[in-house]
C-alpha cells in the first residue's frame, strides 16, 4: 500500500468551501461469520457515538454517521483526498438475524456490529430416544 513520494502543495481544482448540501458517502465495510452470527465492521473515521445513528426498521439496518472534524472556517483546502461527508449505508437483514440481540460498538472510528443468529437457526442436536 505504499505510495511514492508526492508533492502535496499543488493546489487542486477549486472546491466549494462550505457546501450547503451535505454529501453522503459509502463507508467501506467487512462482514464475516462468527460462531454466533455475523460481524460487520465499518470504517467511520471522525464519527463519535454522538454522531452515529444505527436503526432497524422492519428488516433494514441503516447506519448513518456524521464525522465531527472541526476545520476552522477560514481554512482553505489545498489538497484533497477525501470528502468530509456523512456516512450512509443500509443492509437488508435476513430472518436469521435476532434483531433484539444486535449489539454495536464504536472505537477509533470503527463501528462493530454483531448480528447474532436466532437460536432457531443455530444447529441443534436432537436426541433420539430408543423406544
Amino acid at each position, binding site marked *: 500500500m505504499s*505510495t*511514492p513520494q*508526492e508533492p*502535496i502543495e499543488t493546489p487542486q481544482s477549486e472546491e466549494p468551501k462550505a457546501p450547503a448540501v451535505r454529501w453522503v458517502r459509502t463507508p467501506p465495510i467487512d462482514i464475516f461469520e462468527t460462531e454466533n452470527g455475523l460481524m460487520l*465492521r465499518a470504517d*467511520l473515521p471522525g464519527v463519535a457515538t454522538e454522531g452515529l445513528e444505527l436503526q432497524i426498521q422492519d428488516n433494514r439496518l441503516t447506519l448513518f454517521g456524521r464525522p465531527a472534524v472541526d476545520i476552522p472556517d477560514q481554512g482553505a483546502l489545498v489538497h484533497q483526498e477525501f470528502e468530509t461527508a456523512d456516512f450512509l449505508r443500509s443492509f437488508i437483514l435476513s430472518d436469521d438475524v435476532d434483531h433484539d440481540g444486535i449489539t454495536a460498538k464504536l472505537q*477509533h*472510528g470503527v463501528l462493530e456490529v454483531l448480528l447474532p443468529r436466532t437460536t432457531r437457526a443455530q444447529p441443534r442436536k436432537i436426541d433420539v430416544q430408543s423406544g
Partner: protein
Amino acid sequence: MALFRWGSAFDAFRDLEREMDRWIRRLDMATGSRSGRVFPALNLYELEYEYLLVGELPGVDIQDLEVSVAGGQLRLSGERRLSDDVEDDRYRRRERSCGAWNRQIQLPPRVQEDQIRAELVHGILKLHLPKMPTTEPRKIAIQDASSSQLSLPGGAE
C-alpha cells in the same frame, strides 16, 4: 444463504454512481496508488498561521502509528490489522484496506518542523504544521562605493 442483500435497486444504483464519481476524482488526483483507495486519505488545509493535515486512520492505534519529519519531508507509516485471525472463507465482504502502509509527503515551504503537533481522535489524525513567522521587510543599505571604503571588522592592516 446470504444474510445481507443490498438495499433497494435504487440504493445500489446511487452507490454505484457515487463510486464512479469518486473513482473519477481519484484518477484526477493521480496519487499513484495501485489499490485505488489511498490509505490514509489526506486533506491539507491552509490557515493563517499554520497548515492542517487531516488524515483518515480508522481503527489505527497510536502505538501502530509513526510520524516523522526531516528535510521538508513528512513520513507517515504504520500497520493496520483488521481482524483477529478470521479465516478468509469466513468473509462475506471485504472492502476495508489492511496491512502495512506508508506515505511520504513533501511539506509546504516555510513550515516549522520542530513545532509540528499531532493528535489522533476517533480515527482522525490531525497534524498542525505551524508556518514560520513572516519577517518584516528589511531595507538593505547600499553604500556608495566611491565615498566609502569597505572595511571588514577585525581585518588587520
